[in-house]
């Protein structure tokens, strides 16, 4: 399997003396949808800055598709596109000009640039806004414009630094669909996000970073399998019986009100058994939901452990 990006023992000490990265080593395979998670100030944006050459590393090496970014500057830069955390296009330019300018920086001839510009602006729902000044766009549109701009040279690797921050849920989901689509077509994606649900929905592999170190790197599946238990909130259409008991080992029950209760199910327990016991007591469950995001529980646990 080809490695899309490889970081080896990367260190970063800023001019003010703060050590942002303390020896990060990380491989992301081609075609992966990879999440980089961590609390604020963990070093996620510094990693992205170093890959995209906006931040000078203090030590270590970074390779993109087998080529070092500091010795094969031009080849490696053609291979990736970056969507930064903060809006970084001119607020006075027109939407189309921003994408066309970026295409020009990558040496795309005008005709091809024009076709790609239309393709990605249409895909991201911005074609109708192409002649508007970028400052008139909504926050979500600005984020989509940055994605269109990053894709105009059709890179093999797309790096997104919190691309859905401040975007409403409907738009976020449409962006997820779009990112899944381009990942399915072969683009490797590295994503940092504060929305853990986003990482859980989209990503196959994950690294958790804290205080400049990677504290966990695994597949999303095996990470979620580590969950000891899950907490569900169940609602009953009818009034709950006064005495409600599951009588199951490793399973807890807590009444919330007359119609709702909370059930904690251990990893080796089947939820079907819970339903069966409830059924025996005449409780008909009308709805059920996770009390907390599963990944969030793990994330917080890992940070505590580290």
């Amino acid at each position: 399997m080809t490695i899309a990006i490889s970081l080896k023992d990367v260190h970063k000490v800023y001019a003010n003396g703060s050590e942002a990265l303390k020896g990060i080593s990380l491989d992301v395979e081609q075609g992966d949808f990879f999440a980089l998670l961590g609390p604020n100030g963990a070093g996620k944006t510094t990693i992205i800055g170093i890959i995209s050459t906006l931040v000078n590393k203090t030590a270590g090496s970074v390779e993109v598709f087998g080529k070092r970014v500091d010795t094969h500057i031009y080849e490696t830069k053609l291979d990736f596109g970056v969507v930064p955390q903060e809006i970084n296009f001119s607020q006075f330019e027109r939407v189309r000009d921003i994408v066309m300018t970026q295409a020009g920086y990558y040496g795309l001839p005008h005709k091809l640039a024009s076709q790609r510009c239309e393709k990605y602006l249409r895909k991201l729902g911005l074609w109708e806004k192409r002649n508007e000044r970028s400052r008139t766009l909504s926050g979500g549109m600005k984020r989509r414009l940055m994605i269109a701009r990053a894709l105009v040279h059709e890179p093999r690797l797309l790096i997104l630094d919190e691309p859905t921050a401040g975007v409403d849920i409907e738009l976020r989901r449409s962006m997820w669909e779009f990112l899944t689509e381009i990942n399915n077509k072969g683009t490797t994606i590295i994503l940092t996000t504060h929305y853990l649900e986003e990482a859980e929905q989209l990503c196959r592999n994950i690294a958790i970073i804290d205080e400049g170190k990677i504290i966990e790197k695994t597949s999303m599946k095996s990470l979620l399998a580590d969950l000891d238990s899950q907490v569900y909130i169940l609602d009953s259409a009818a009034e709950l019986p006064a005495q409600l008991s599951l009588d199951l080992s490793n399973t807890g029950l807590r009444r919330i009100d007359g119609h709702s209760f909370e059930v904690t199910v251990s990893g080796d327990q089947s939820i079907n058994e819970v339903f069966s016991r409830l059924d025996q007591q005449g409780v008909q469950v009308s709805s059920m939901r996770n009390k907390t995001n599963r990944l969030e529980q793990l994330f917080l646990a890992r940070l505590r452990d580290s």
Partner: protein
Amino acid sequence: MFANHKLIAFETIVIKEVRRFSRIWLQTLVPPAIMITLYFVIFGNLVGRRIGEMGGFQYMEFIVPGLIMMSVIQNSYSNVVSSFFSHKFQRSIEELLVSPVPNYVILTGFIAGGMARGLAVGAIVTITAMFFTDLSIQYPWITIAVILLTSIVFSLAGFINAVFANSFDDISIIPTFVLTPLIYLGGVFYSSQLLPPFWQFVSGLNPIFYMVNTFRYGILGSSDVNVYWAFLILGVFIGVLYSSCIWLLRRGTGIRS
């Protein structure tokens, strides 16, 4: 990056720069024309009639080359310093830095943008001057060469200012406290032959003095300086400033963490 890709990237930067100063033409192209018209009316016409001749020419004729050069210097400088600093301020410089555009193409693109504005304003001022005096160029190639090289020098200087600038104040300090005095003391309005020997020597330390006089030589055929010496100075300035800009870009000073 292939040569044709670099050429497209260069064109893109230049088009973006020209589009930027053309979009705000009321701030970039009109004020110099108004200011220079006032110079012609007040200094050239009203005051100039009382002065009579300067360096063997009517005062109006004498100041025209200096005023054209002053416009080119100020506008080449201010275009690059304000544009590059705006890119830094809005972080749109990151678009360029993550792309495969080589540093020398980035620099050359901004320099070409600065030259485009400097020469556009120079052309406006020249046309304005034609309403006040007959303008005939004695040495066209010297005139063209010196104006192009001067706009390169001040575009490069503007670039260095922008690299180190951290606020909008920082991009106006050098033009106000360094550039303007050097221009005014660079023989735009007077011949250095009027000065006592000591101040003639001090004028000789001002690089703008050589640029203004060489340009005047190209237009009027008369100069206070050796033209070859002036071209050498321009060449040295371009070499030193260009190397410094490339070094700063490579280090990432002011633009990379």
